[in-house]
């Protein structure tokens, strides 16, 4: 595409520091402010999602003891909890939050390529969150259809929130997708076009690789959610029958015929499975950087890590129907999707090996971000391996729709990415604020969260083995469920409440350290990547002062042999510190 060749990047250097409060903190076009706005909104709504989970966990652990939770709001809480955590917290936080913060800084750009659109993105995202929350206050309340929103029950009587709740939910998703697309265009274009001199793709930190690939997945996969949301809105509001078959509603036959509920599921999971990797790939990237920095060692097998990210991204589009083995789709699809699903385990396993091998022969500093990173490897290994059960079509027969599934996906795309989120926030907090967090509080936060979540989710797998189904308001007396399982459920609820309470430590730490934290200096971790080499901390609008940085090496020159310091920033020319050319094991 060579029809334009205007070198427009010089014009982008004209960044004026905004002077009013409004332009600096509200209508800001600075990617760092936008990142923090994204992060704060995501964490706030994430706390709501967590409180919802505490509420329904009370019912599960102590059935019918707490009267404020009844079947109606139980299903609403479960639904909105899932929706918030997957989309409004994790997707927004990784891409809108970390993507916005790290892409320009790690690539040596002054800002995103389209700052105005970036600003629109965050406020449209805020709007989508407001619509989501509003759905609790409309007649009939929020939707209780489960986060998968399967028709017909999502829009037919018998489910909570089929009047306004589901409409607002779908609307909110549509608005979110618009926000994401505006952000996504920015991230992709910035990665492709706005890197500083010397920053080849293969010199990019893995954080950027993960976020970049996740954004591509999001841009191509979110349309599937949009398409299904639009079609469901038509069915709900205009009486069409895209997904609505001939059926009975409260005893009366509908006038819909022929609609295909399975079609919705195909569309939904065509988005839904890449969505897993939209959350996972940024986590993979960020955790790689955390491990490398705090182990003072280059990431092991960088190229394999990049290729694995690319391969996982590509494969993630042809595994979606493993969510549908027992959905009533053509059962012969099971052979194909089980195979592709288990193949995707190979690049994923390689990533795990390489993280662990990065620790090998390192010089491991067990500071808070590193603890979270190690915790991530443990929980991700666990969650990834249970995925091999569910991905194998035969094993899915007994385990699908049981608590094993709930335990699996919470382990792999709940706990694991959240551990990375925390680790990464602690890691970049000094850069964002110029101050250190409180190390003791951070350690307490890690231990309670890590051990709490494991004590919550490990037993949950076994409840699933028993055959206890998910999304049940109450089990009652079920012949295969022993009384001890009820005790186990109570203990899981207590774990959940402890985890929830623990997060106040995190919030407290973040807020208090803003004022009271020790000054961190520009590069407290002695890190090599560009964001730590900014002239100011926190970086000013425009990031780099007068001149853009130039890059002379990859982002992982830690402990280069023969050097006094155990890190060599990317900006250091080869003439000053030779790269470790002759010292690699590549022969």
């Amino acid at each position, binding site marked *: *595409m*060579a*029809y*334009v*060749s205007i070198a*427009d990047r010089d014009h982008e250097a004209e960044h004026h520091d905004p002077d009013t409060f409004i332009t600096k903190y509200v209508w800001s076009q600075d990617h760092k402010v936008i990142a923090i706005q994204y992060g704060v909104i995501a964490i706030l709504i994430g706390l709501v999602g967590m409180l919802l989970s505490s509420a329904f966990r009370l019912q599960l652990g102590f059935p019918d003891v707490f009267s404020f939770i009844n079947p109606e709001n139980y299903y609403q809480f479960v639904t909105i909890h899932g929706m918030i955590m997957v989309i409004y917290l994790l997707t927004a936080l990784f891409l809108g939050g970390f993507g916005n913060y790290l892409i320009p800084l790690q*690539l040596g750009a002054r800002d995103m*390529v389209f700052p105005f659109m970036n600003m629109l993105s965050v406020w449209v995202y805020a709007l989508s969150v407001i619509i989501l929350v509003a759905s609790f206050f409309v007649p009939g309340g929020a939707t209780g259809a489960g986060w998968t929103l399967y028709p017909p029950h999502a829009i037919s009587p018998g489910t909570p929130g089929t009047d306004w709740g589901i409409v607002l939910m779908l609307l909110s998703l549509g608005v979110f997708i618009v926000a994401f697309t505006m952000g*996504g*265009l920015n991230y*992709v*274009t910035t990665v*492709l*076009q*706005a*890197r*500083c*001199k*010397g*920053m*080849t*793709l293969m*010199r990019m930190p893995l954080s950027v690789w993960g976020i970049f690939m996740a954004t591509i997945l999001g*841009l*191509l*996969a979110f*349309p*599937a959610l949009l*398409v299904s949301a*639009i*079609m469901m809105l*038509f069915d709900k509001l*205009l*009486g*069409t*029958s*895209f997904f609505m078959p001939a059926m009975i509603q409260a005893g009366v036959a509908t006038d819909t*015929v*022929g609609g*295909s509920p399975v*079609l919705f599921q195909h*569309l939904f999971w*065509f988005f839904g499975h890449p969505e897993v990797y939209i959350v996972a790939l940024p986590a993979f990237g960020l955790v790689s950087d955390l491990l490398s920095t705090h182990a003072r060692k*280059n990431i092991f097998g*960088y*190229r394999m890590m*990049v290729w694995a990210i*690319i391969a996982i*991204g*590509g494969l993630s*589009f042809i595994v979606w129907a493993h969510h549908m083995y027992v959905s009533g789709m053509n059962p012969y699809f099971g052979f194909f999707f089980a195979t592709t699903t288990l193949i995707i385990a190979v690049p994923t396993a390689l990533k795990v090996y390489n993280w662990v091998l990065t620790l090998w022969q390192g010089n491991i500093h067990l500071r808070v971000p590193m603890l979270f990173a190690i915790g991530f490897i443990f929980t991700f290994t666990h969650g990834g391996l249970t995925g091999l059960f569910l991905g194998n079509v035969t094993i899915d027969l007994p385990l699908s729709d049981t608590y094993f599934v709930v335990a699996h996906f919470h382990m792999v795309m709940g706990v694991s990415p959240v551990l990375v989120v925390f680790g990464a926030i602690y890691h970049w907090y000094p850069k964002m604020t110029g101050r250190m967090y409180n190390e003791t509080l951070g350690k307490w936060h890690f231990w309670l969260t890590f051990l709490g979540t494991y004590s919550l989710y490990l037993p949950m797998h076994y409840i699933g083995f028993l055959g206890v189904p998910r999304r049940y308001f109450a089990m009652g007396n079920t012949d295969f469920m022993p009384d001890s399982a009820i005790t186990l459920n109570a203990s899981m609820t207590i774990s959940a409440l402890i985890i929830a309470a623990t997060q106040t430590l995190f919030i407290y730490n973040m807020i208090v350290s803003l004022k009271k934290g020790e000054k961190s200096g520009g590069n407290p971790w002695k890190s090599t990547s560009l964001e730590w080499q900014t002239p100011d901390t926190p970086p000013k609008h425009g990031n780099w002062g007068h001149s853009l940085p130039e*890059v*002379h*090496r990859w982002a992982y*020159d830690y402990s280069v042999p023969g050097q006094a310091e155990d890190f060599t920033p990317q900006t250091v020319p*080869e003439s000053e510190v030779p*790269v*470790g*050319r002759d010292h*690699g094991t590549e022969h």
Partner: protein
Amino acid sequence: MYITLIFLGIIMATVITWLLRQTFNTQPWISEAADNEVSGSSMDTNSKAVALTVFLAVATSIFALFISAYTIRMDEPDWRPLAEPTLLWTNTFMLILASVAYHWTRNAAVKGLDSRVKSGLTVSGAFTVLFLVGQVVAWQQLNAAGYYLDLNPANAFFYLLTAIHGLHMLGGLWVWARSTMKVWTGADSDSVRLSIELCTVYWHFLLLVWIVLFGMLLST
């Protein structure tokens, strides 16, 4: 879902091939002098052009998914094809003219011919508006003929697909309106050249999408 898979397969294959070509045969831990000279820009073009290309991939994904949904839903026994109004042929012709006019305007803009740009923009905008008006009239004709939206999925898909395509067209018209305003208030064609070039691509894309959609609607 095969259609979506083919479209997305092509997109993903392009992305992956390109990425692998960038990443193979490099040993990033070895500092190559050549690498130090890399400008940091992967495409020799404007960022907006890159963003547009990415957006076109997103739009392709949306339309491919709708087409997939269409072909899957079509197999159900309740599907009753509708008789497309002949007006659609006229509309198609309008859109072709709009696209051609935009291309002509682009050529003028590249050559810096201000007055031609002015008239070219006006003409292409006019044809586009005619297309959209024609689509709305086609809706009315269908409605008058009893092809209501909720009567049959074939009808519903017709309204839905034309509406989504029309919305994309409206988005294009917004950008068109901005450059037209600029030109008519005296700006020279250079200041809108990029916008016109990108819009030309966008119009061609939407024409292509329309031809695919129209062909599908006609043939089923």
